[in-house]
């Protein structure tokens, strides 16, 4: 069982845990964290695919994909969290009015 395959299975388990929670939860914050865990699983798969033994240098192309993926993920998470905060403000102002 090569090291890369071990970490790939770890990544796949992360994806499984994230999908399971994503489908079941209704809480918005939990859903954001679940999507981040899902992306971490995909990133682990990519990095494990890039691993080529302790001596050989790893394949830089998947590393570039994951780097781009991390920045895209943090920006989409920021957008989702801003929407959640704004939605909370609107609903809180409705609570006070009624």
């Amino acid at each position, binding site marked *: 069982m090569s090291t890369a395959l071990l970490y790939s299975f770890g990544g796949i388990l992360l*994806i499984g845990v994230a999908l399971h929670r994503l489908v079941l939860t209704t809480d*918005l914050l939990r859903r954001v964290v679940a*999507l981040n865990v899902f992306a971490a699983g995909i990133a682990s798969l990519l990095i494990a*695919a890039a691993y080529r033994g302790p001596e050989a240098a790893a394949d830089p192309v998947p590393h570039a994909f994951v780097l*781009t993926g991390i920045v895209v993920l943090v920006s989409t998470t920021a957008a989702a969290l801003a929407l959640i905060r704004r939605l909370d403000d609107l*609903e809180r102002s409705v609570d006070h009015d009624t």
Partner: protein
Amino acid sequence: MIWSDPSTMTPEIMTWDLPSLVVILPLLAAVAAFLLPSAAVGIGLGATALVGAASSALAARLLASGPEISHLGGWTVPLGIALRVDGFAALMLVTTAGIGMLVGLAASRSFAAKGATEAPAEERQRLFFWPLWLLLLAGLNALYLSSDVFNIYISLEILGLSAVGLAVLSGKAAALRAGLTYLFAGLLGSLLFLLGVDYLYAATGRVDLASLGAIDEMTPALSMALVLMLAGLAIKTALFPLHFWLPAAHSNATAPASALLSALVVKGSLYVALRLWVDVFAPTAGLGTLIGLLGAGAIVWGSIQAMRVDRLKLLVAYSTVAQIGLICLVFALTDEIGGETAWQGAVYLILAHAAAKSAMFLAVGRIAEHLGHDSLERLHREPLRPGMAQVAFALAAVSLIGLPPSAGFLGKWLLLEGAMRADAWLWVGVMVLGTMLSVAYLMRPISGFLRFDRVEGPVIMPSRLDAADLWPLGLAVVAIAMGLLAATPLSLLAVGSPFVVPEVVP
């Protein structure tokens, strides 16, 4: 000048690297529109016009000298990224710019500054619509030109984010809740697509479409990658049963925003799915039939929901779900005998739906402004005679149903012909059923416009022709005219089409 092959045309513009300009121009304009809010309208319309001109020049160049490749950074394909322009891409570029221009003009009219009395919400809509639209245009152009799977993933993200921005533009709680659901669905779709890209790279070490297309035998990893990518794209294009986010997001947005969402945004992921299905992979027939069945389900479910809802905007949103299902029937027909005709029919339906649906959403926006509400129930008791907006709605309905001579008719005709040639009578039956169902739910509003028997007071004439009604009318006329003037678009579509010319890897 580095670009693919010398052109017979002499003017200077013909040697520019148009593919990258068509993506970069709206990007720079988006930043400019964000920096100078007061000049946003001018920048927005000007940039859209420029992009339209560049796309048409690119299409003309394509008709003259065939598909083009622009190697970015000067690196050859497996290492670098290449922007590939073939007929299908050029057709989508021109349509996106054209429809965007008309919707932009309608938006600049309906968002017109009302001076000091403008509430902060209207002001925000007026200012932020333009950077979002230009980002959407850049995302779509990047998507249509990209020939690299990971590059498509990032373009889908830009597309998704600017679409969410447009959906929440009105700032109301309902729009925000729908926008948030749309963002989560879009993010899940993109991550599934990225998982597919990951499996592709792990198995083949390539991410560009040309090398992936050259692989002919479907290993388990390739078919898993295809299934994952199609699942992600199905969420983003709202194919039944993954359409849960679309009705709320499209009906709660402002009129110009929902026009852009329904007409252009869902088409982006549909385009990628079609390109993967036809150009790149050699998928099994079973998967095609499954997608076809999902499409049939979308037609039935979308039409039934459209007949039950009371709000006009919700009806139009559900009709998008049904029309996407209709277009997705092509997945079951591509590797049959009539594959190419069916494919041309599906592409033409994409264009027809884009023009007709944007006209319909803009018309519904105008009608809601006149009547103050968009409930079908109270429509029958409105004493107002139908005006230009209702005419635009009816014309758009003609194209959606597929009555001659509209573009919708031509698209459906080609799709039907492709299905009949392949003796796929199930899909022919589904299409005929879909047409009848669309007549049923589209007649609900139209009958509401024309019936005055239940009106108590005197029936009043509509106000004189308002400039804002021109744009929905213009789009509806485009939807009809494209049926008559189909020669050029179809010949453009044939340039570099995967069916005609054997895929030559440059």
